[in-house]
């Protein structure tokens, strides 16, 4: 009988893709924040081998601040801290109101276009409107090209995948993908993963929402598709629920100091996951989240322990 994917991975595989600095932290060295940019845990994108840090930055709700100059400044500070830690992948969507514009303004201001791994989505019906929306997003992000374009929530996915494939073959795009969230339309997602040449899927997965472990994550590993995980904290509900709970003593065994780090390490320790994208509007939360991108990751037995603990709570 074939063992589940998770059980087949050894600790060595879990730690795969680490930089030398990160290896130091695993063996007990505690790098300062300033050092961490060179010591983040990374994972290779299956279709290219390009390494990206395991923790990225989402922008749902948090960066949709409109014209508010104070909040825009705060969003730039969040991104600044993220880049200082060595973070790369920032994900957004035309659905997220002013988020793309806010990101573009901050990337420009921080002069971090080179470090940025730009991931956005197309979210509109019809091929022609999709092309126009992609160009509008590109202008808002102030980037020459996107690294990754995804079809948001599978809206008009057949039309848009055609467009994205054309862009990729013209070298105007590096990766293409599709997204869902809240555990919706997993059957459709599976069908696309089986039948289309995509580089990434984005889906909801966390210690409480584990449906993706059954079929989608093993399928992604089998097909060589990268996985971006959204809603790692269930939109804040998980961290809120755990706020009053003391951080278990065993957290130190995986170099976690708080619940967000435990929750994130649970996600990114799954070998099929390429990157988790927690969103935040608080600079101090960036430090917490990026803490999950260093140190030891839980092995399969430890992952079971985390999931059981969360289920009990």
């Amino acid at each position, binding site marked *: 009988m074939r063992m589940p994917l998770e059980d087949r991975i050894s600790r060595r595989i879990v730690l795969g893709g680490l930089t030398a600095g990160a290896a130091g932290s695993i063996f007990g060295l505690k790098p300062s924040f300033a050092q961490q940019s060179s010591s983040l845990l990374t994972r290779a994108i299956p279709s290219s081998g390009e390494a990206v840090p395991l923790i990225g930055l989402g922008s749902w709700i*948090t960066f949709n*601040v*409109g*014209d*508010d100059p104070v*909040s825009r400044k705060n969003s730039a500070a969040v991104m600044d801290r993220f880049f200082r830690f060595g973070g790369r992948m920032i994900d957004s969507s035309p659905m997220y*109101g*002013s988020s793309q514009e806010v990101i573009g303004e901050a990337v420009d201001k921080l002069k971090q276009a080179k470090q940025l791994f730009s991931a956005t989505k197309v979210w509109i019906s019809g091929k022609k409107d999709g092309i126009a929306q992609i160009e509008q997003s590109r202008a808002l992000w102030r980037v020459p090209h996107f690294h990754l374009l995804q079809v948001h*929530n599978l809206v008009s996915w057949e039309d848009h995948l055609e467009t994205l494939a054309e862009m990729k073959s013209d070298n105007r795009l590096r990766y293409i993908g599709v997204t869902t969230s*809240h555990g919706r339309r997993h059957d459709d997602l599976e069908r696309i993963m089986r039948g289309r040449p995509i580089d990434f899927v984005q889906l909801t997965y966390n210690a409480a929402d584990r449906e993706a472990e059954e079929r989608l994550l093993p399928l992604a590993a089998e097909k060589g598709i990268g996985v971006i995980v959204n809603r790692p904290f269930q939109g804040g509900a998980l961290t809120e629920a755990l706020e009053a709970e003391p951080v278990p003593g065993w957290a130190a065994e995986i170099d976690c100091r708080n619940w967000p780090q435990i929750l994130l390490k649970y996600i990114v320790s799954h070998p099929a996951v390429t990157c988790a994208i927690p969103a935040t509007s608080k600079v101090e939360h960036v430090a917490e989240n990026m803490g999950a991108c260093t140190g030891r990751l839980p092995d399969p037995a430890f992952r079971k322990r985390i999931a059981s603990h969360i289920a009990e709570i």
Partner: protein
Amino acid sequence: MTDWLDYTPRDFLLFSPETYYRLFALHNEAVWPAHLYVAALVTAILVLSQRGSVDAGRLIAAILGAVWLWVAWAFHYERFATIHLGAPWYAAAFALQGFLLLLIGFFGRRLVVSPDRNAPQLIGYTLFLFAIFIQPLASLLLGRDLFQSEMFGMAPDPTAIGTLGLLLASNRSHWLLMIVPFLWCAVSGVTLWTMQSPEWFVMPAVGVVAAVLLFWKPFAAMGRERPSTVLRDA
């Protein structure tokens, strides 16, 4: 089409409560001193609503129409649209309401607010007073900043409640003029509910109360002769 049926109201809440309430502070700062003009118009409504004449009703309708158009443009289109993709549609609905008030109330002379009020009209007028005096203080009562106050004629919620109140206090059952305010009570209630705001129930509750009053009004009028109003409406 089925792609879009997957969405829930929560999916379209794309801003945080902090951002939403800061929006009112930014709006208030941006449009100051428009508050003074709106306060003058509200004072005018208070005076005109004690007259009970057709001409006073026309002026009330003109003021209401103007503030709905103002909120449509200044708040929904210019401000709310920066964080909410649906705001241009809200702006269109508010503009429609403004034009309907002008068409029916000002040009059609069909809005008369009499000082002689039966029970549903009195409760309706109380809703108007709630919108202009109490609702702006809600932000303070809920621990938010005074600059985030939502004022009648400046922000959509008190404008909708105040308008419902005045329409209920008027001579007729203006159901056509109440459709957009009713819809806004629902939209605002859902928005605040998804944000888990403590006052989320206020708008839906006002909507329900206003609907009950709307149906009660004709029965209350039957039990009470109001010759002066009838003459003025003829």
